[in-house]
């Protein structure tokens, strides 16, 4: 049996209200709240990046697990905001966790689904016997250009999953992935902000791939919406996952437990994984989960998990739940946000 053996999440402490962003750009302060159902987003501090957040989330996962980091044989870090263009985040993470040097560690990039690509790849390594334990992390300090529609949701956060064949808390029942060449959202090398195709990012990109992957998986498994207790979808905003779920036949009650975007925004490579972590925080043994990521460019990974009785054992003190991480937010204004996110051109920059 292969599956998730532990997990950890990390959300930076700072938040900005979407109304505050709207105020600066002269937009309706309630628009993002009403149309996207996103109230605020998480903002990484000046000393944080995708790597430090990956370390935080992974440390929580290891603390829950109680295992030896040296037993982790493979590490994947998925992000579209790796601090270095060349020099892996994964090698820093491996050293920081004490998993090095006898470990295969590598960075992945596939927009918002690089984290889940790492998750399935780590599980495959474990299942094939090439690794004892694997660690997959999705971590991003997502950037939206100032004034762009993305700025209301592009947020920071990380989620880490340890996978293995012993002490499994969520068994992998099945997996299905879809990929097409769909240019809905991209960032060229060397450019600070991504560009996107506006409404093209919806129907022909997000919905097409999410629905295709979810339907593909359910067909493979011979299941339907009624077989799952929770459905988690990539969440660029609150509206999209609710709408995707509705079109697949999932009632809102099965989707809402996995929603985090309303308070912390879209954490990109961590987005669906953060929703999965929130569901695992409260899931009961025997409950079944459908989880589908989406990465622009574009593709979706769909997972089918069943929670096992081992889940109780990893609910340890000293590791915050996703809700606890969400609740500890401190709001900053746009000026502080601009400073923290490096949006201010400093005098010594060339």
């Amino acid at each position: 049996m292969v599956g998730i053996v532990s997990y950890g999440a990390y959300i930076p402490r700072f938040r900005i209200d979407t109304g505050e962003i709207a105020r600066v750009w002269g937009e309706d302060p309630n628009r993002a709240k009403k149309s996207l159902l996103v109230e605020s987003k998480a903002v990484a501090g000046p000393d944080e990046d995708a790597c430090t957040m990956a370390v935080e989330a992974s440390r929580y996962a290891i603390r829950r697990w109680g295992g030896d980091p040296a037993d982790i044989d493979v590490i994947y870090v998925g992000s579209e905001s790796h601090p270095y263009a060349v020099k892996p985040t994964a090698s820093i993470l491996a050293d920081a966790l004490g998993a090095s040097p006898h470990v295969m560690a590598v960075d992945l990039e596939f927009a918002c689904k690089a984290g889940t690509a790492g998750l399935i790849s780590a599980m495959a390594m474990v299942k094939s016997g090439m690794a004892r334990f694997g660690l997959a992390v999705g971590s991003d300090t997502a950037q939206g250009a100032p004034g762009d529609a993305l700025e209301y949701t592009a947020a920071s956060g990380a989620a880490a999953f340890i996978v293995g064949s012993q002490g499994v808390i969520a068994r992998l029942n099945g997996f299905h992935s879809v990929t097409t060449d769909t240019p809905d959202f991209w960032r060229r090398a060397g450019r600070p902000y991504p560009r996107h195709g506006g409404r093209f990012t919806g129907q022909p990109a997000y919905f097409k791939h999410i629905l295709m992957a979810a339907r593909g998986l359910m067909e493979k498994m011979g299941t339907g919406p009624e077989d799952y207790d929770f459905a988690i979808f990539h969440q660029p905003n609150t509206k999209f996952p609710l709408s995707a779920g509705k079109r697949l036949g999932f009632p809102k009650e099965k989707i809402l437990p996995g929603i985090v975007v309303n308070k912390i925004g879209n954490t990109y490579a961590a987005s669906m994984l953060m929703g999965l972590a929130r569901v695992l925080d409260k899931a009961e043994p025997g409950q079944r989960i459908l989880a589908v990521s989406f990465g622009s460019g574009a593709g979706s990974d769909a997972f089918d998990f069943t929670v096992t009785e081992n889940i109780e054992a990893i609910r340890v003190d000293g590791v915050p739940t996703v809700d606890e991480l969400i609740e500890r937010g401190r709001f900053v204004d746009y000026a502080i946000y601009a400073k923290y996110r490096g949006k201010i051109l400093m005098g010594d920059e060339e």
Partner: protein
Amino acid sequence: MRRVAVIGVGETKYGEHWEKSIRELAVEAGLRALEDAGISSEDLDAIVGGNMSAGSYTGQDHIGALIADFSGIADRHIPAIRVEAACGSGGAAIHVGFNLVASGMYDIVLVGGVEKQTDVGVDMSKEILAGASDREWEAFFGATFPALVAMMAKRYMYEYGDIREQMAMIPVMMHENAMNNPDAHFHRRITVDDVLNSPPIAEPFHLLDVAPVSDGAAAIILAPLDYARKNYDTVVELAGSAVATDYIGMHDRPSLITLAANVHASRKAFRMAGMEVRDLDLLELHDAFSFLPIVTLEDLGLAERGKGASLVEEGILSMDGDLPLSPSGGLKAKGHPVGATGVGQAVEAVWQLRGQAGKRQVPDAEKALIQSIGGTGATIAINLFRREK
């Protein structure tokens, strides 16, 4: 001059066609029109295609030959020509097609219109559409297309008082009408409050005062009236067709609260058709901005100067009124795939006059007017349709 009839009509659904290219849309509409006429593409003697900006939107120009080729008749070597008059391209294409048949030069002529707008982002689209105004004297100085029409509306309100609410009734009516049009871009009711509280675009226009960016295509087939009488039970004549122009830049026009091209084109078309404005059973007007139908009603002589808005308020233009306005849902709710729009209005007019308009049928409609505006009114095409009893 020969009299001209419409023997076939067809259109695609209007909306966001992510999976279809401009050629697929054009061919889809064309084939529907041919099927409706019961003829094949090999029967065509000429093709006229209305299109504003395929080159900028999709990189594809040379639309005439493209349509002929992808209709499968490249080897027939018939003339196929694109007509461009900005947002009035469709109406202008009908006028050209009308003349080809009326002159006796060609018998069976397909008039198509197509636009694929969603291949570019919103900012790019705005930039392309600004080409409908005077680029050197208006657009280069920062005037967007909505801003220009907004100036007309502001001047109108300066002269005649606030008509914000009456203007808002037009998009509300259009969305209501579109509920019964399966080809419409939107199937969603809105209220006057929704319009007034939607995000501002250019004072006095808010988002819901303005037609959307749509993809779509429409086609009609023209033939001599005698041919139509011989071959079809119900005959709809294209009884009058006129295009008039005006100063392209608004600053040169003597007045901002009348569109001179409206007056000239409609007079000419009515004279040609031997019809009068009071004979009309329905209108399909160019409501790219909610203000435009109001000034048009006045230019057509349906309302006195300054009274166009009260006509809207009185309910005459609603589906159960005396003169329904755009049963299709208009540009606002049926959609506005620029080059297709005017031709799509003709498709609606013909369905209405044949009694084939389903739930949005205007009872026993006999005479219809369609209006296509290019730019801020520098080109206006008026086409009049009449069903033979």
